[in-house]
């Protein structure tokens, strides 16, 4: 489940936000601080996660720090996914 979750996030970020496909992302690539996803685009990434996993992420949890890598996003999503 964990890898599938990360793989889904990684695939989505790569498809939607990466401009140059010659530099592949990994789970630890800095997304926000690395300038791949900006604060406005974070809104659409949050919306994707909410739609895909049928969750609601409160605004105070959707911080640049929490969205800074696939690993961190996966931790955040797991907080809200009902097991």
């Amino acid at each position: 489940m964990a890898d599938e979750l990360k793989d889904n996030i990684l695939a989505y970020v790569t498809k939607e936000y990466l401009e140059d496909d010659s530099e592949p992302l990994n789970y630890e690539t800095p997304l926000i601080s690395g300038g791949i996803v900006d604060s406005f685009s974070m809104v659409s990434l949050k919306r994707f996660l909410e739609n895909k996993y049928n969750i609601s992420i409160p605004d105070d949890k959707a911080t640049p720090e929490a969205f800074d890598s696939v690993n961190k996003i996966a931790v955040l999503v797991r907080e809200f996914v009902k097991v």
Partner: protein
Amino acid sequence: MSHIGSYDDRLKNFSWNISEKELGYKPGDVINIGWYCTDRICQMGKANKPALIWEGSTGPEKRYTYNDIRLASNTIGAYLRGLGLQAGDRVCLFMDKIPELYLGFLGILKIGEIAQPLFSAFGDESLFFRLSNAEASAVITQKKHVPKVRKILDKLPHLKHIIIVGHEGAAPLKEREVAFNLEKAGPVDAFQIHPTMAESPSVLHYTSGTTGMPKGVKHVHYSLIAQYLTGKWALDLRDDDIYWCTADPGWVTGTSYGIIAPFSLGVTQCVLDAGFQAESWYKFIEKRRVSMWYSAPTAIRSLMKAGDEIVKKHDLSSLRHLASVGEPLNSEAVVWSQKVFGKPFYDTYWQTETGCIVISNYPGMEVRPGSMGKPFPGVTGVVLDPVKNEPYPAPGKIGLVALKFDWPSRMRTYWNNEEAFQKKFRGGWYITGDRARLDNEGYFWFAGRDDDIINTAGHLVSPFEVESALLEHPAVAESAVVSKPDPINLEVVKAFVTLKPGFTAGKDLDLEIMNFIRKKLSPLAMPQEIEFVAGLPKTRSGKIMRRILHAKEWGEEIGDTSTLEND
């Protein structure tokens, strides 16, 4: 003691000649911003002083002295000349905040070409319109942004050169592409700077209007006179400062106060090319010992949201003066700043069209939290009665912020659109498009926009441009775009959409449309909320009434609906 000293004393007998004299410029002389920002500072004995200290999200820092930026801007200028580009040609800078952006800007100006900086997050349609409108001859970009340029290349016959920074080891170059490596190109010492004059065009920044497509704001080399003095008096930039302007040079703050003002004053500035995070920003201030910090209300509110505890973890004692620009700075942010940094953010007000700060709070002057401040000496600012097109005879009433159009860095026209330029004037006054009131002491207080333009995080977004792009989505039949209040960004984009037959509203379509606009225009223009509706409010002649939707979002009175189609 601040540079400006007493604001009231500065108003007496003010002349822009003060700035001309300090810069050693006399009317009729050659004036080239690139030279003033580099060669002149070296000639003043500061060749070895750090000019630019750059840090990215990864990798080593880069440091440039004033002599380094002189040589590097020569190198870029010589390279562009070698490609056959000539004075007056438009050269677009489409890059993240990497050193080549700053150095390229100066190099372009040195050879008399017109710099057209564009925000690197622009989507291909935003990029296409601006490159096409400017008829740019070349674009300097990074490998990561090349795919966006390639996508629109066939529609850009004027674009002869795509100059790619950081192309090493990448896929083969395509039509019209060349790779450029600043280090490998080597320094160019002997260099003939183009003899630009006061009215020679320098910079073309694009800005959004309420109707029609974005307009290119044309500035000239003489703008330096105002950018230099406002940098000195309003921002209080000092010789021993470590200055940090957080703005991207894709926007006017990033060029007027992220390049021209600090370099023409010989100040050391540092740049952080990384996405926003409170922790990394505070670390940067601490590590670089930033003393003058020029930022934006959205960033300040984001820092407020991150809390006070994180501030205490860092030694921010180097901070001497703080200023803000982009949108109105709310009083809570000023009070918070005083509490956590021990000093307030001084709000400054200006626009792409003004080229420099025109209304501001000044060091040494009482800050009234929430106020825009007072006009810069040499700038005549009034609150205009929108009916009579004359200044109100007494303070207190909300009207149009208007300026006497005579300061050095005012725009000269909109590129290829003199008609739109002329529409910016009423009764001889330049109309900013903002509304405000004056208090009894002459302070301006922002009251809102006078049009439908959306100010999101200090950037203007045209509802017309977003609506036009929405209609290109296969599911969208009609759309209306308005602003929606937002606690961090002041306003964000909201779209009302009707769907074509066969499409069903839902969260997947909502996300698809958001991403469609983000990629086509920019993340700023992406609607953060889409409301699917059965129909849009229209006049009987069929015009969509945005103001009704706007009023609904802001909880305001809807007003006169006598022309409403379904009323």
